[in-house]
């Protein structure tokens, strides 16, 4: 693949031949992935394609069975979540991974508290407000338990948390899935701002519109393998769907054809 070869020279994070299996199930097989600084890479694929497993490998939650991970030119082993954070890989998980009994500030700084033996609540609260304002977050108060926040507000808190440690690469697992129209636009704006700041962004999404709006490259996974890599500006939805489902004749095209036929015949249900 020529695209990959050119990316290697400048890439911040690259994976080569990464395998991961859970018992007899090969969740990831020979995965290759490159992320350069200031680049948004979208990771798409059907359910069970291995996207979330790949995210967990990047976050240090799972360790790959084999393969190499290179970060900033150095081969690295991401042995646990704190190793990933120290390298500068921040992850926003699909399930957000927030502690519902703690308040917003506590969650933002969890594991990165200022002055561990005499917590500086004031400084943390001020920093939390600044961060949330940067993200144009609509959270009324940062001193309530996360349990009382809506899905979108929690998503914002999770993204804000990932930005705290000055990461170099940000991995977003379904960042817009739980969001309203305005918040989705905010998150997409945010992703572009992260990119302009020179961060590498890996974004997982099922929403093709979102993906094409902000991504530079689209990497398709299918059944735990790489199944194509596209330029987000030129690829058609049809090509993407074909790569995701593995065939040009798939449920999506069949449904579209059927809808077209019904529309022509004027036999729509009342």
């Amino acid at each position, binding site marked *: 693949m020529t695209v990959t070869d050119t990316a290697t020279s400048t890439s911040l994070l690259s994976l080569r031949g990464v395998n991961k299996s859970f018992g007899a199930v090969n969740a990831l097989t020979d995965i290759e992935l490159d992320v350069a600084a200031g680049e948004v890479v979208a990771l798409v694929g059907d359910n069970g394609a291995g996207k979330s497993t790949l995210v967990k490998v990047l976050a240090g939650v799972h360790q790959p069975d084999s393969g190499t991970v290179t970060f900033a030119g150095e081969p690295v082993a991401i042995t646990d979540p704190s190793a990933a954070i120290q390298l500068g890989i921040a992850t926003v998980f699909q399930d957000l991974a927030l*502690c519902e009994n703690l308040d917003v500030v506590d969650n933002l700084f969890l594991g990165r508290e200022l002055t561990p033996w005499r917590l500086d609540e004031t400084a943390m609260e001020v920093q939390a407000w600044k961060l949330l304002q940067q993200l144009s977050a609509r959270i009324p108060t940062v001193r309530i338990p996360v349990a009382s926040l809506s899905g979108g507000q929690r998503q914002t808190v999770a993204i804000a948390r990932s930005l705290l440690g000055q990461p170099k690469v940000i991995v977003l697992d379904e960042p817009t899935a739980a969001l309203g129209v305005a918040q989705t636009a905010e998150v997409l704006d945010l992703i572009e701002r992260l990119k302009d700041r020179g961060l590498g962004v890996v974004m997982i999404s099922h929403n093709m519109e979102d993906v094409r709006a902000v991504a530079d490259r689209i990497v398709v996974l299918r059944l735990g393998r790489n199944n194509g890599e596209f330029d987000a500006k030129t690829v058609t939805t049809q090509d993407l769907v074909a790569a995701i489902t593995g065939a040009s004749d798939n449920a999506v095209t069949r449904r579209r054809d059927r809808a077209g036929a019904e529309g022509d015949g004027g036999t729509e249900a009342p």
Partner: protein
Amino acid sequence: MTVTQPPTPPPSALDRADERLSQDDGFAGALRSFWRSVKAGDVGVLPVVIGLLVICTIFQSLNPIFLSSANLVNLTLDSCAVGIISLGIVCVLLVGEIDLSVGSVSGLSGAIVGVLSVRHGWNWMLAVVLACAVALLIGLIYGIALTRFGMPSFVASLSGLLAFLGLQLAILGDQGSVNLPFDSALVQFAQVAFVPAWLSYTLAVIAGAGLFVSGFERRQRRKKANLSVGSLNFLVLRSVALVAGLGIFAWYLNQERGVGWMVVLFVALVLVLNYAFTRTKWGRSLRAVGGNEEATRRSGINVGRIYLTAFAVCSFLACVGGILAAARLASANLSSGTGDVNLNAIAAAVIGGTSLFGGRGSAFSALLGTLVIAAIASGLTLLNLDSSYRFIITGLVLAVAVAIDSVARKSRASHGRA
């Protein structure tokens, strides 16, 4: 300054900018927000304070000796050992685990100190250090059993309960008990060491001043950072109330023998742990693990180490409590730490408002819960009722406390406060 406050102060503070927030400023605002959080199920220590008042009223009306200085001096001294054990229980409950063997560990520690210092002539301090080391080791074993082998702490500590009771019996040997000499430092500390009257009032003033200074400093820092600040009047009132409350309490006890040094040690430990729970990264991590273990792990915190330290602190405090219990009785014997010590310590933490479901609780719950249990025991003893009633009533109070915990938890869920 609050009297002339305008009805709607401009919401200029950084954390009060959102128009959806109710502006709870000043003294009335502090009360309002307190009442709102209680209604939402964030009851905190309110039920136990009410419960304590009810219990005291009932026993006082049945037997006027109950609230006498002499009885309160005894009551405070009797609370200390179980209270300190209960502090450790708060620690493991915060991470959502349990230690059922604190009674056995306390009995074992008393036996180690007694046998080594009396039968083998060890220096008592050396014996205490060794007992503490053994307790820490026990805590680490529970932690490793949980994190390495995935043994639920319920089962691990249940087997520990039996095993360490056996070890206690083995150490005590055929005689089955060791009497600590009355002139030993430990017994002196637990039985006859009282704070001089002037010092007890000084400590009350220091406590109030400490509350005020820390609150005032926090206020200044928040003001500087353009964050909302609480009512200054409320802070002054709380500090004055604390000085007055502690002062009157000390004065009342000083009518008799006074405030025991052991009580001061207990309260000091409560304050230290309260600081650790609320103002350190460790305390924050305990609560986070109790709330969502996986999220805590993913945020880079070494969850295993948090479990290990929680169990170690719990066993350590059980050991301290056990040594003090032995010193208070001037004896370590087969029944030390058995019977209801275990359940009293756990019940005290839960009655005080620490959740059995993990992630919620405070050091003060051990203090208040222990007072409830000690008050019941003392009141029933004064009424010449035997331990059957004590067990029944303590059991009922525990059931009520757990019910309150569960109901409050549901209420928090429906009010979105988790």
